[in-house]
């Protein structure tokens, strides 16, 4: 019974992730792609003539089918992981309904999985970044992501532990402050990466990064709302009938 609930939530999480991925794809195509193209234009104008490589995948495929593949798989994969985390969070975070738990989890995931690593190692368009340091940059980015997620989980546990003595409000404030302090230390001690070419247009870089952030906000916001709705209907079918029954009971 409970195992079936986990399976049902997982399936719904992946479906909600796919839906969220579709919306994120629209944002990525209309807001993100123009900046990718401008950055590639900059790259082409600055590359020495002999460095023009043979295209394995054409630009028109990269910016449509390739982009869709990546964003949709990302949505489904994070949808599945978030659904599994949700199974664990359900009933353990406090007095939240299934729908509220989903949106809360989704908001925290946006922060921990994306925003916190992004503030230290922001997304970079083509032409930014030295190919020789790709290994180091990937390691640092994933390290920052894992660290941020682990610290967010630790802060949540800390908040739950402090709640009986401090009360929910101050326990939450203390847990968030501890998270911010730990992240601040990580920001201070992890190495700085800045490989933006000196003459790279600042507006293109800014718009690229804002569009990258918009993609994630769309993805996690949609996921939280859609998955919350699906989970609420799965776990509490009754409140829906009670709500529809209310106007009938009103005249008495």
């Amino acid at each position, binding site marked *: 019974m*409970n195992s079936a*609930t*986990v*399976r049902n939530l*997982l399936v719904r999480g992946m479906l909600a992730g796919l839906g969220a991925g579709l919306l994120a794809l629209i944002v*990525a195509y209309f807001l*993100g*792609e123009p900046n990718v193209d401008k950055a590639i234009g900059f790259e082409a104008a600055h590359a020495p003539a002999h460095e023009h490589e043979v295209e*394995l*995948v054409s630009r028109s*495929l*990269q*910016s449509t089918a*390739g*982009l869709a*593949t*990546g*964003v949709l*798989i*990302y949505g*489904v*994969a*994070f949808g*599945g*992981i978030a659904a*599994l985390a949700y*199974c*664990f969070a*359900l*009933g*353990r975070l406090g*007095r*939240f*309904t*299934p729908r509220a*738990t989903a949106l809360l989890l989704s908001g925290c995931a946006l922060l921990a999985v994306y925003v916190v690593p*992004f503030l230290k*190692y*922001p*997304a*970079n368009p*083509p032409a930014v*970044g030295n190919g020789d340091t*790709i*290994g180091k940059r*990937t390691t640092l*980015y994933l390290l920052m992501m894992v660290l941020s997620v682990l610290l967010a989980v630790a802060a949540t546990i800390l908040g739950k532990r402090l709640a009986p003595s401090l009360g929910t409000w101050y326990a939450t404030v203390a847990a968030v402050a501890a998270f911010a302090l730990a992240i601040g230390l990580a920001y201070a001690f992890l190495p700085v990466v800045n490989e933006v070419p000196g003459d790279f247009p600042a507006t293109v870089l800014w718009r690229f990064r804002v*569009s*990258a952030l918009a*993609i*994630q906000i769309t993805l996690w916001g949609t996921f939280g709302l859609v998955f919350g709705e699906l989970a609420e209907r799965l*776990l*509490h079918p009754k*409140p829906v009938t*009670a*709500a529809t029954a*209310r106007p009938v*009971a*009103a005249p*008495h």
Partner: protein
Amino acid sequence: MAQHVASPTVTTPVVPAKLPLKDIAPWAVFFGVLMLVLLYFVGAEQGATSVVSGEDVHEWVHDARHLLGFPCH
């Protein structure tokens, strides 16, 4: 106001039951790993490390990798 008093069960917040860890664990392990493998192929394959030789995976998800925030090249 009257109808709120008449139906107190509707306004009571419904706290969902906890799912036992032993029911979550098998799903979390199997699908957790599967999802991470998918993320690896979108985010890092043929960049920092390569399981499949060549550049096709990298080139295919190139734009997604940039826009999703992963270091690409």
